[in-house]
């Protein structure tokens, strides 16, 4: 069901060496998922394009600091996440940034299974996603779009695994409830 393979062979080392084709390849692999993630946080097309551009430039300049090439994806999304937060700070949305959920530890089995969405529910799904508080939305999009593990999501969002579990749990539960109510 998931399109993203678990262990992709990404040309990170070649990109680090300055290979333009490797960068092109990395960009093609991540451009849309990165854009989707940024857009679902900032909700504006031009801002999202700008933030993706800044993310790519930042990644290009600092790829040398990445120690584990297999973590390139979560590292890249982590840069994008920081760019979004910087953008919000610029817009003085500190209050929204402070929003936190109760982070009681949850067991793995507490996280509901993924949803399957019928075609007529797609638009509704997008609207419901928008209604979620941004920390839940962020965790959910990372989980859906890149199939990141809890640890990777925690690294991207700068939180701990317990908080990520909690966010995913509440987000999926809220989404499921909203979808059921919408029927």
């Amino acid at each position, binding site marked *: *069901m*998931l*399109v*993203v393979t678990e262990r992709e062979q990404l040309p990170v080392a070649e990109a680090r060496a*300055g290979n333009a084709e490797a*960068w*092109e390849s990395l*960009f093609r692999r991540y*451009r*849309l*998922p990165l*854009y*989707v993630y940024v*857009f*679902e946080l900032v909700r504006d*097309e031009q801002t999202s*394009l700008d933030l*993706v*551009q800044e993310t*790519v*430039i930042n990644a*290009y*300049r600092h790829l040398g600091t990445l120690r584990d090439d297999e973590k390139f994806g979560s590292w890249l999304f982590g840069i994008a996440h920081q760019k979004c937060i910087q953008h919000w700070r610029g817009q003085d949305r500190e209050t929204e940034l402070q929003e936190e959920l109760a982070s009681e530890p949850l067991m793995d089995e507490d996280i509901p299974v*993924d*949803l*399957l*969405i*019928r*075609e007529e529910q*797609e638009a509704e*799904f*997008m609207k419901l996603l928008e209604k979620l508080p941004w920390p839940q939305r962020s965790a*959910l*999009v990372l989980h*859906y*779009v890149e*199939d990141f593990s809890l640890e990777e999501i925690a690294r991207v969002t700068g939180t701990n695994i317990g908080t990520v579990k909690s966010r995913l749990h509440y987000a999926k539960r809220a989404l499921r409830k909203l979808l059921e109510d919408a029927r």
Partner: protein
Amino acid sequence: MKTPREVLLKKHEAVEGKLDQMWRATLRRGLGGRADATERIPPIAKLWRELIWPCRRVWAGLACAWVLIAVLNLASAEPEPRSFGKTAPPSHEEIRALVEQRRMLAQLIGEEPKPTEKQRTDSSGPRSERMSKLVAA
């Protein structure tokens, strides 16, 4: 039925053209140029970035420790004794008195006084000249 991933990507796939344009524009405007610029950093700045800046707190701590040691050292130091090199040279009267004293001492103990500077200059000169003076006398 679709997965949320498929729904999300499909919703935004129209923007792929703009993302490609943005990528090309970024390359044209100087993604490489920025990298070149970072490579053209002078060696001192590079050294500063790689050696000093990452451990700036450690270096600052060391600097503070040295400053503290220097301050403590200055504060606890005793005043230096007067150095001899800085005393004023003896006056002519003092030198004359000293010479006179030596002469008197020599007379008392029955030694011939050492020739003075003037006497020494008189007797100096080549021996041949001294001989001619003797013959003339």
